[in-house]
């Protein structure tokens, strides 16, 4: 798994991931769940980096446009 920057030593039971994946309709084997678990832990840990910033009043960038030229 090459995606991800933040690394975490936190642990998560792969069986939980496997069960969640099954619930979502993903046909994940035990081996795949075990391999995926550290990557998911890292992804969740990445939120710690993002939420260091005060985002309370920030509207998310869900309008997919940069808008007009900045100097207009």
């Amino acid at each position, binding site marked *: 798994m090459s995606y991800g920057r933040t690394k975490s030593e936190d642990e998560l039971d792969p069986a939980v991931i496997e069960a969640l994946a099954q619930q979502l309709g*993903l046909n994940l084997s035990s081996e795949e769940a075990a391999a*995926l678990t550290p990557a*998911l832990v890292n*992804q969740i840990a*990445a939120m710690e*980096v993002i939420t260091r910033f005060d985002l309370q009043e920030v509207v998310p960038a869900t309008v997919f446009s940069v808008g007009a030229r900045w100097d207009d």
Partner: protein
Amino acid sequence: MTCKRSFRPLSLVWERVGMTELMDMSLAQVSDLLADGSISSVELTEANLRAIEQTEPAVHAYARVLADGALEAARQADQDIAAGKRRGALHGVPIGIKDNIYMQGILAESGSRVMKGFIPDYDATCVKLLKAAGAVIIGKTHCHEFAYGVNKPPTRTPWNPDCYPGGSSIGSGVAVTSRSSFGALGTDTGGSIRVPAFINGIVGLKPTFGRVSVYGVVPVSWSLDHVGPLTRTVKGNAIMLQGMAGYEPLDPTSANQPVPDFTASIDQGVKGLRIGVERDYFFYNGVTDDIRAAVEGVIEEYRAQGAEIVDVPTIPELEATQDAVFTIVLSEGSTYHRKLIREYADKYDPTTRATVQLGELIPATNYIAAQQLRTRFKNAMKKRFMTHNLDAMLWPTMPITTVPFDDMNVPRKDGVGETPVGSMCHHTFNANLTGQPALSVPCGFAENGLPIGFQLLGKPFDEAMLFRIAHAYEQNHEWHLQKPHIAV
């Protein structure tokens, strides 16, 4: 693949220079030859097809070569040009298209078994515009599976076949540097045009978000995806952008902005322009000494040419942008693949499959928080540009040169504390978050003999300024003329 004979006698240029010299020319140069009748599009296309035959066994840049269709388009271009109906600088010029971009009636497999046999029934808007500009589509270039950048396609960079050739516009970058294409289209979600441009020693542009429509392009991440050109020179890049930019009402992310003449101001130089340099993040300790020295040399050259180099304070949000991008890419990408992964999971490469599955497990609130961080970062970047009255910012396109395949996912050997794959997009994905245009330009070679490039970041819809600044540097150097050992 068939190469039919030209419909008319060989031109003087073709007889004089031959295939190698012809394919060494830039897109802008062959455009000029076509314009003055020194060469025909058929001759150019035949030369390109021979170049492909010669280089493909070593580099595997093309997923499919469209010889018959290209020659037919070239014949039509020659007839139109001869009749005084030349449509512009791209008319009759052969180019490549990344395989995740649709062409009507042509296989578009996006580097995946999932899409095996898929034939779109319409042209992507960028392809439609390029055809209308008279470009000759010579082939579809390889890409990483669904442009995720995690599997291993057959493409190899001629600069060192043992090393990662850049992705995900992998075939486009390699074809251009191998001289088996004058220019090619790529897509860029976190650096997939600029990274292969850097690694292959060529020019790559990620335009402003919305400048080039993504209608008819297989998405990776709707809010981060861009389409742009890879070429050997800055001017050729501007010519290609001219042929593909424009508003597409069918594409909700397309920007209804005027399209200027991208080459009109390209020769105006940099005197009086203000170029910002931020050092804490973009010149961090992960930048290797040779890349740092090369890019510092670029900065000093711009200063000598009369540009004002402006020290820009760092933007604190930069430290979180990589995590934000990964969160957004994984979440949006997995949403696109939601149906496919349930029906064809076994057809995905295991690395791509795991990436898609991972995206489904990320909480929605994390995705929204990443988009909130993006808002903050966009505002901060805009403030830096406006406060310091910048025309562009400049930094290395990548902090390291490419590395052997086996080293991609292991910690860097210099103790920086990240993997090469993490380093490679450290300087590129920021522009995907803000949507600003970003141009990678060659600026030398590292001690290991591999290419180095720098990146210019501009204001939204001001690609012309980036071309102008980059062209001013390129005119004083011959990096764009260097070619790898494995080339035409």
